């Protein structure tokens, strides 16, 4: 049976909380989230593919990758790791960028706070997505939410999942 994905929206504090249980020990889930080779296998929802260019999973380090679409369209993204507590949590900023990692400032920064917890049946991941300021959320809503809503999964993914 597939584990349920819980999503809570908190529009007033500009946050989205995502929770999901896994039937695997927390150590394995941690590896899947923090090793480029594993991330490339699952991070992009099909038919998109995630392709890592560089990965340095350390505080101050960066994951530079692209989301490649079925027609070979590419969206480059970088994730900057701010704080890491091994096999427990990590905090990161995600941005759109170019192939060299130069941030595209026309898109807002998305903040990640990911927690990994052992459970009786395996593990649980709690993700909090938030945005730096009010303007950023307005931009995300104006650009991403509406457009994503009408354009469909692939584009929304490009807009929101950097």
């Amino acid at each position, binding site marked *: 049976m597939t584990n349920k994905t819980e999503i809570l929206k908190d529009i007033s504090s500009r946050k989205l909380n995502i929770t999901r249980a*896994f039937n695997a020990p927390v150590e394995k889930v941690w590896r899947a989230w923090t090793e480029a080779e594993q991330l490339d296998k699952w991070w992009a*929802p099909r038919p998109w593919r995630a392709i890592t260019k560089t990965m340095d999973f350390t505080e101050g380090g960066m994951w530079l990758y692209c989301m490649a679409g079925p027609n070979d369209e590419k969206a480059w993204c970088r994730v900057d790791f701010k704080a890491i507590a091994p096999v427990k949590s990590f905090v990161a900023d995600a941005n759109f960028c170019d192939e060299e990692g130069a941030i595209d400032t026309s898109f807002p920064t998305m903040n990640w706070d990911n927690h990994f917890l052992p459970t009786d049946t395996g593990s649980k991941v709690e993700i909090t997505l938030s945005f730096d300021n009010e303007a950023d959320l307005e931009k995300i809503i104006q650009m991403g939410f509406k457009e*994503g809503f009408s354009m469909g999964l692939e584009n929304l993914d490009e807009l929101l999942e950097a």
Partner: protein
Amino acid sequence: MRRDIFQAIADPTRRAILTLLAIHAMTPNALAEHFNTSRQAVSKHIQILAECEAVSQKQNGREIYYHVNANKMKEVDKWLDTFRKIWEDRFEQLDDVLKDL
């Protein structure tokens, strides 16, 4: 200017108004008392919310009451369903990766 539910919730004051109206219907004056801004500013936000069809008005005696248009707010939930679908697909792929790790 675009008028839809996403425009309605793009502004913090309008989100606060929607939160208040979600509890119960209110008159514009009663709403304005909750904000430090001018009544005109609050009226303008109510007007935008009405144009976005996020709120609708009902006459009750001499007073006009605004209430949340629940059907319109569901459009946000529809978007959220799309967002949820992305994460469900992604996590199912992660389930497969975990089996092989």
